[in-house]
């Protein structure tokens, strides 16, 4: 058995839960009406039950199960907790503890708890609760409880699912409610579930499952689960086919009656909420469950894939994209209708494929951002500050690996901004600022980087103070100060062992936070920049690489060279007359839709060999970065293209205004313009 590696985890967690049970029971003794405490105890007991059943410690599982039932009854106001009941529960916990210690000592955790179990049962049966009646003798009847409880109520179905079920009836399909029970000793439950689902999907369509598929995959169920299946097969066939999956001990197939289900749903729901794992907040939990099952319906099945395989897939696909470009070119020159059609078709398919592959790895940064509003509200409360949080660009997508790592650094930065940046309402009013401070989170793509900016309109960085602190903390020497520019001084607050807050607070730590932030970001291959104006606010700009990505660009020609400009930063292209170009302070500008936009001649910036032509008309690409715009003068537009971003390698780092390169259809390399650098 490969359970050994889990044994340590089991022991640790069991100890924790027993500890929690003990302390919560003590609380409960003082205040037996406190349902929160009961819920806490119930949760600990429930987790313990699940864990011990998984590990095969049946006595422990039985005991906790009985205890859980008692608590559940208490929780649902079906049982009044008095001191005798609490005493018995205490005794049960003592037994559990001794069982766990037996397990720690290498025993099998067996203990005769029948007397105690009987006692607990007596307590719980003291009440005529429908679903508890059947808990009498262990195996057979728990099954029936479970199957009953697992009956999917009609109310849990959404409109769409009900419509599908109705339509299937109209089409003479069968709607079956299937309860499946796995063997008690089944180790790889998720795998069995998967096999069962495979069988089910061969026969028809699974409309709903209880627990949800995601929960089933995470083995968040005991031994049984239920599904609603639409199929053309009859009841017996369905049952036989499912029984062929090994380790399935019981299958109950019944017709899913829409009307009957509606009638019983009331009763079922009450049964379910009591059997439900975490009924404390049963309503909202229930609602949440339904929500997840609703949204989960479309993306129902997932498998975990090693990210290396996705990388390999991506690399192969990149090659394919390059060849696709080449084919397009060939087809364009050959003018063969059949070839062109085929290539077009292939382009469409590979376009879809590309979306799928990219989406596999990309996740919107919203996944990180969405927890911030609550956090900021809480922090603002703790700090007695008034803060508005605005979020832009939450849909910006980032590679999964980056998303996983970026959460903590951002939390640090936000905490820092709230704690050290934004002042208290009184201070703000005194300074003539609005009472409410603003914290802005902004994410956007630029070249092959993603920028995440955290800005506040708070106090800004006091450079004098930073320098003084840095010297006194030994971060820098006094004679270094003269040679430092503003941004270097700002960077000092990222040094380790630095804290500018006059008082160390719980919110943003002891000056280790920002140091960690810097390290994490740099380990991701990114960088962090700080802009700050004393009294006005600060801006922390985190730059992260978008390690792999296929982007849309506009290919342009400058002299004989081809450059790619990311479509995301282009507003539009235009052709302007020489006489429309004006000079402002020795700089060429144009009037673009009422705005003065500076012109940048790519030929000059990139020192493209060749004569500067004196044309009357110029092709202009209007680019934008944040609020700022600029017009790039190019020789001609080639067209829009999907390209694979590649880096210039480790030898050429920091090439001005070039963020990377790509390989065109003809095998040549084209450079990608970093519009971001041009606008600064």
């Amino acid at each position: 058995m490969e359970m050994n590696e889990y044994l340590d985890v089991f022991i640790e967690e069991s100890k924790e839960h027993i500890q929690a049970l003990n302390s919560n029971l003590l609380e409960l003794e003082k205040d037996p009406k406190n349902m929160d405490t009961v819920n806490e105890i119930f949760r600990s007991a429930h987790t313990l039950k699940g864990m011990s059943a998984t590990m095969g410690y049946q006595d422990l599982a039985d005991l906790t199960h009985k205890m859980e039932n008692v608590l559940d009854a208490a929780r649902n106001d079906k049982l009044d907790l008095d001191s005798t009941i609490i005493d018995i529960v205490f005794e049960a916990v003592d037994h559990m503890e001794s069982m766990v210690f037996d397990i720690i000592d290498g025993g099998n955790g067996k203990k005769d708890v029948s007397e105690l179990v009987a006692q607990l049962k007596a307590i719980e049966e003291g009440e005529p609760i429908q679903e508890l009646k059947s808990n009498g003798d262990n195996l057979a009847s728990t099954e029936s409880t479970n199957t009953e409880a697992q009956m999917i109520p009609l109310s849990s179905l959404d409109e769409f699912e009900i419509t599908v079920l109705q339509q299937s009836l109209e089409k003479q399909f069968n709607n079956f409610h299937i309860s499946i029970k796995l063997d008690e000793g089944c180790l790889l439950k998720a795998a069995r579930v998967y096999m069962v689902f495979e069988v089910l999907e061969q026969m028809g369509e699974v409309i709903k499952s209880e627990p949800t598929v995601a929960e089933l995959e995470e083995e968040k169920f005991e031994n049984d689960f239920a599904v609603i299946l639409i199929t053309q097969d009859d009841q017996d066939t369905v049952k036989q086919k499912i029984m062929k999956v090994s380790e399935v001990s019981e299958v109950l197939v019944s017709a899913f009656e829409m009307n009957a289900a509606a009638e019983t749903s009331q009763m079922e729901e009450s049964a379910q909420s009591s059997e439900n794992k975490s009924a404390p907040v049963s309503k909202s939990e229930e609602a949440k469950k339904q929500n997840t099952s609703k949204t989960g319906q479309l993306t129902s099945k997932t498998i975990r894939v090693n990210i290396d395989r996705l990388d390999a897939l991506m690399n192969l696909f990149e090659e394919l994209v390059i060849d696709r470009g080449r084919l397009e070119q060939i087809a364009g020159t050959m003018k063969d209708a059949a070839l062109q059609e085929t290539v077009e078709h292939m382009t469409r398919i590979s376009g879809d494929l590309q979306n799928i592959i990219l989406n596999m790895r990309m996740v919107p940064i919203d996944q990180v951002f969405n927890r911030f509003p609550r956090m900021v509200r809480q922090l603002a409360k703790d700090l007695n500050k008034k803060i508005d949080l605005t979020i832009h660009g939450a849909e910006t997508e980032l590679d999964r690996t980056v998303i996983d790592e970026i959460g903590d650094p951002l939390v640090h930065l936000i905490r820092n901004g709230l704690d050290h940046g934004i002042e208290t309402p009184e201070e703000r009013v005194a300074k003539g600022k609005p009472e409410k401070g603003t914290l802005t989170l902004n994410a956007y793509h630029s070249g092959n980087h993603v920028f995440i900016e955290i800005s506040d309109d708070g106090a800004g960085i006091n450079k004098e103070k930073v320098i003084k602190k840095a010297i006194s903390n030994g971060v820098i020497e006094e004679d270094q100060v003269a040679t430092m520019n503003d941004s270097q001084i700002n960077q000092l607050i990222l040094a380790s062992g630095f804290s500018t807050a006059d008082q160390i607070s719980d919110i943003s730590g002891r000056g280790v936070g920002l140091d960690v932030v810097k390290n994490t970001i740099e380990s991701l291959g990114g960088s962090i920049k700080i802009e700050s104006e004393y009294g006005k606010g600060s801006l922390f700009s985190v730059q992260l690489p978008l390690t792999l990505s296929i982007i849309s660009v506009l290919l342009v020609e400058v002299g004989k060279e081809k450059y790619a400009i990311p479509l995301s930063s282009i507003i539009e292209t235009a052709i302007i007359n020489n006489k429309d170009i004006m000079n402002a302070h020795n700089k060429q500008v144009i009037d673009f839709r009422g705005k003065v936009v500076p012109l940048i001649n790519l030929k000059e910036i990139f020192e493209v060999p060749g004569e500067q032509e004196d044309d009357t008309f110029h092709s202009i690409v209007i680019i934008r970065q944040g609020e700022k715009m600029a017009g790039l003068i190019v020789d001609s537009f080639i067209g829009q293209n999907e390209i694979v971003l590649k880096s210039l390698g480790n030898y050429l780092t920091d090439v001005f205004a070039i963020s990377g390169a790509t390989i065109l259809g003809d095998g040549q390399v084209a450079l990608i313009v970093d519009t971001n650098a041009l606008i600064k």
Partner: protein
Amino acid sequence: MTDSITETQNEYLQSIVFQLNNEEYALPVSYVGGIETMMPITRVPGVPRYVKGVFNLRGVVTPIIDLRERFDISNYENTKSTRIIILQINDVEVGLIVDAAYDVVDIPKSKVEPSPDVIGSVQVDYIHGVAKLEDRLLILLDMERVLNIVETKEQYQTES
């Protein structure tokens, strides 16, 4: 078997010999990832003059350095024998343009001498030494210095 190999490696410097402006140069074979014929190169703006640009090495965008520019050789032109030597030093991959690339030669360490000081000539730091082999004079290059990579230098480390 393995012993004899390490023995050889200790006594000899396995080097690739290439030609630049009628002189023969050598660099450690362990750096060399391959030899290619000339390919289309894309110029990269704002880099040192000797960095010719980047080219597509089987799907990898690889920077390319023209050693003739690096060594201030004027009046060169690409011929049929012009080659690109692909170098892999640490995690840096670059291509080197040379006039011609030849064989692999085992240079006995004992034959390596420091580069001769000639009065009036400009001392360059990227030459590690010279080796006289029969009728050939090979100039041994310190590639990290050629590429301006300040990194650990293990190969061609002067022993004295």
